[in-house]
């Protein structure tokens, strides 16, 4: 599913964000990537999303070669992943329904299918009753649920979450992570980059620990160190 071989990332300013990273995340796994600020978490996530390109090494995600992928193939690749951000990135002038609908429109889903799928997706995240609410009428947790519904709208094989609970209180965070757990059980591979020890310890899933651009620990049922 995700394979990294000897991956090094050096930014233009000379910062070596990742150093010879080797890892593999099989299909259907739930993995946390943790580490202090500047450890390379975000860079690793960006490489997997193909927002950045590795300086050296090989990266394969969902069968796509991230180093050699053609420009026109990138949208196809991105349709096989879902992304959740810390700041939700909901469109403020669109309702919860419209925000989820937007993801389906962009990928050219038929109007008839959209009207069936959006209520189902909102139901999965427990917000069917708030479909007409605008983001500013929703709590942080609810906004992240809408963002999750949008991320899984196109039925991705892989869901990448960059600090998904960074803006949420501990209780709400657990709710979100439980929801991610349910999505994972449906077969979606999930990667969560975080430094929220609460959710890591709660889930008891694989934990990959980064420090100074290197993997210093990788445990199948890990705890936040």
């Amino acid at each position, binding site marked *: 599913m995700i394979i990294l071989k000897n991956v090094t990332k050096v930014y233009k300013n000379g910062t070596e964000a990742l150093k010879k990273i080797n890892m593999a995340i099989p299909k259907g796994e739930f993995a946390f990537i943790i580490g202090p600020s500047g450890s390379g978490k975000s860079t690793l996530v960006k490489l997997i*999303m193909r927002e950045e390109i590795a300086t050296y090494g090989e990266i394969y995600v969902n069968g796509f070669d991230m180093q050699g992928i053609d*420009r*026109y193939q990138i*949208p*196809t*690749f*991105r*349709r*096989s*992943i*879902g*992304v959740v*951000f810390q700041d939700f*990135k909901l*469109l403020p002038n669109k309702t919860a329904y419209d925000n989820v609908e*937007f*993801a389906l*429109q*962009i*990928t*050219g889903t038929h*109007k008839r299918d959209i009207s069936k799928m959006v209520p189902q997706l909102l139901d999965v995240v427990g917000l069917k009753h708030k479909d007409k609410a605008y983001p500013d009428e929703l709590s942080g947790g609810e906004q992240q649920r809408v963002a999750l519904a*949008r991320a899984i*709208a*196109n039925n991705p094989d892989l869901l990448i979450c960059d600090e998904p609970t960074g803006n949420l209180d501990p209780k709400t965070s657990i709710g979100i992570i439980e929801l991610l757990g349910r999505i994972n059980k449906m077969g979606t591979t999930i990667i969560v980059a975080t430094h929220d020890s609460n959710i890591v310890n709660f889930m008891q899933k694989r934990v990959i620990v980064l420090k100074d651009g290197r993997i210093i620990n990788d445990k199948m049922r890990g705890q936040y160190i």
Partner: protein
Amino acid sequence: MSFTNFFRIIRESFTNLSRNRVLTITSIFTVFLTLVLIGVFGLFLLNLSYNASSLDELLEVKIFIVTEADIDTINAFNERLVLDSRIATIEYVSKEEAFESTKELFDEDLLDLGLGADFLPASFVVTLNNYDDVDYFVAEVREMPEVYKVVYHKDSFNFTSNYSKWIRMISGVLGAILAFLAVLLISNTIRLTVYSRNDEVVIMKFIGATESRIKIPFVIEGGLIGCIGAIISFIVTGLVYSKLYSAFASTSGEEMFLTGLRMAPLKETLLMIFFGYMVLGVLLGVLGSLMAIRRHLKV
């Protein structure tokens, strides 16, 4: 892209433009100024060339022979013209032919006024091969004793060759500066919409929108700015031209005959302005957005 999608993008573009109202209006105004300036000079040149006659006419020289010249003098003169290598064509208009064509111009019978063919001079209408020869040729011919008068399109020729060159240059430079400004302003407007919609772009990118699906709305926005600017310019220029045209059409026939001025036909000219403005306006808009996208939109 389906029709529904296309109309959605157009609708969204209008909404986005109305969000950055001040910049949008400024950009539209610049497009308007650019197009009107180019249009006014364009129309001026169009009417000038419409009046300045064809190139052949500019090469044409009419030589009137003194009325008392006999047939031998005329023949001798004709011989000299035939031998002149600068001349391409020669047409002889006899006194009688001149009288006939003059009669057609006037309602009253010239004979009633006691005038006959004798009072009109015979003439040669010659066409030269080269513009540069016109002045020398005319000067030479004027010196000849059998020549009564020489008429040629010196004024219009000089005007079109000298002044129109300047007019073209000035309008070209001003037009280019304004067009450049318009492109810059549109680019700035689109840059701001790119920034204000950064989240939307990021979402689209990670949802798997194609590059063109992300970029096209911005290009359409630029095109819309150009299009609106073009429509306003067309309304203003069209109204002014129609007014001028009707004012010209109402002047008396005599005045028209004496000045020899005509305006380029209304319908065709308006159509030309409309399409010209539209093409140029949309082009400026699209160029502006492409510039902004290239610099500020990372997909």
